[in-house]
């Protein structure tokens, strides 16, 4: 009986062996493929991390550069503003200085006339301590003081003022 079954057992054994070998081969292949995929993924993650590090560094450098540029520009603009303010201050001072000018009474008369023309004949005009005149009437006011007129003159120079800081 046993002898009769021996070929069958041998065949079963051979098949089992073949199947085991196949399974082992498949498992090896699968392991190799998983390993390769894991390596690829690791390489990708590493590359992404490197890229993100580089990008972060570049972004940080760009921020620092932007800040430095902004500071530089701020300094230039602040200097221009100071130059303009100084120019305005000197213009006001020079206008105030007209009070000591021998022609000041004539100037006052001219300003009074101009103020009346602008604001109407009913304006009450008086001389201002800063020089020039102020006119006030019902619901109206005209300011023709010397510092204010100097300011308006500077404003009206518009583009000419830029020559203060242009080479």
């Amino acid at each position, binding site marked *: 009986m046993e002898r009769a079954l021996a070929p069958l057992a041998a065949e079963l054994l051979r098949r089992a062996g073949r199947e085991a070998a196949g399974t082992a081969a498949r498992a090896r292949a699968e392991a190799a493929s998983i390993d390769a995929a894991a390596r690829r993924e690791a390489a990708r993650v590493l590359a992404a991390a490197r890229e993100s590090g580089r990008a972060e560094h570049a972004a940080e450098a760009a921020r620092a550069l*932007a800040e430095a540029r902004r500071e530089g*520009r*701020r300094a230039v*603009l*602040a200097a221009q503003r100071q130059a303009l303010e100084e120019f305005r201050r000197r213009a006001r001072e020079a206008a105030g200085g007209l009070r000591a000018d021998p022609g000041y009474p004539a100037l006052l008369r001219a300003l009074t006339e101009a103020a009346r023309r602008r604001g109407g004949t009913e304006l009450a005009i008086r001389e201002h301590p800063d020089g020039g005149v102020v006119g006030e009437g019902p*619901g109206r006011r005209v*300011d023709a003081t010397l510092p204010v007129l100097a300011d308006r003159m500077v404003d009206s120079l*518009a*583009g000419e*003022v830029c020559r203060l800081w242009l080479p």
Partner: protein
Amino acid sequence: MIELEYTDVAELRGPLAVVRGVAGVGWDEFAVIRLPGGGTRHGLVLEVDRDLALVQVLEGTAGLAPGRIGVTFSGAPFRVPVGPGWLGRVCDGLGDPLDGGPPVFGTATAPAGGLPLNPAWRLPPADPIITGVSVIDALTTLVRGQKIAIFAAPGLPHLDLAAQIAAQAHAAGEPFGVVFAAMGLTHADASGVRDALEARTAAGELVLLLNLAGDPVIERVLTPRIALTVAEHLAFGLGRHVLVVLADMTGYCEALREVSAARSEVPARRAYPGYLYSDLASIYERCGRVRGRPGSVTLLPVLTMPGGDITHPVPDLTGYITEGQIVLSSEISVYPPVDPLASLSRLMRGGVGAGRTRPEHADLAAQLIAALARAARARELAEFVGADALGPADRRHLDLADAFARDLVAQRRDESRSLEETFTRAWRVLSVLPRADLAMLGAAALDAHHRPAAPEPGPQEPDGIGTGHREPR
């Protein structure tokens, strides 16, 4: 030189002041309101009736008291100094400096409302503006003199994209400038925009007007007009090609709605004033080219669509006026999230082609759009039948869509791509498809640029969509 100040303010209500006893004052005149401490505010005349003038105070009337303020009328509508002095400056929404510098002085002044232009002097938009953003340069090219809007749902990086375009755009070596008007921005957003544009500001090629979310809304109504007035002079007076970026126009329209409500005007759709369309047109139509003048004004308004609703009055009316749109979509996972199938530059043909960009540009853009449309259909189909059931042609198109997003669209926020690089990438994307699939491109262009990665498959299967054919194993 001597100014007449009216001191009889009869009433202050909301943003409005009623001045009594005025003479010779006209509608839309610009006014300066002097405060007792020496400060000033600004206003516009809304209405004049005999000796009464109704003045809208731009900064609001809070803290003002009748009898303690004076109002001076300028005798003309609001005028803006114009000239090269604007370049390199950062100002608020009314053009007052925010950068610590002196006030901007111009060589002349111009009305902020703009001068009407004889239609016969207008030239159709032509020649491209290169933005350095691949997906825009390749598929929705900006054309000089065009108006094209960026539409975005809230939460998308529309400001980043607008700032990137403003920082990078150029006109292929011709004199170029950018006017960036930011309206209703938060401090954080404004700071981001300033950083992105710093280099260009320092180079004296950019004007930045910043109206922040906390600034008076009425100021916001003037900001785009000031930006355009400055731009028109830089373009038609000084011969520059000027790109005007208005971000965000939804903020502008909301300001207009608030001002309209304060004036007790009859509200129309979603409480926006009935004249919203003509108001938007009065802004958008100020771009273009003028016969005999070398420069151009190109307009790029940015709009957030409340709730992502493209039928909202602001994007809806904008879409009627502008010549195309660049639509950002949350469906796109890369930056910039431009949806190529929803975006269109209607005047693109006037700006691309031989001598402008590349001879095959228009065909290449059409082919890419056609292929992406087919990929979108294939993707929908795959949702029903599964990706395995798609035919090889459909699968190739899905591969193309992936390559398109990865290779052409995806771009860093600080990355400016040359036209050459954009075309190299676009051809690499199209080379995913075999030559037989690229029927819109000429043989010469295909010979020169089509480089398929793998050998082309043998006999092509019929290109029916959704045939569900499996590839032979």
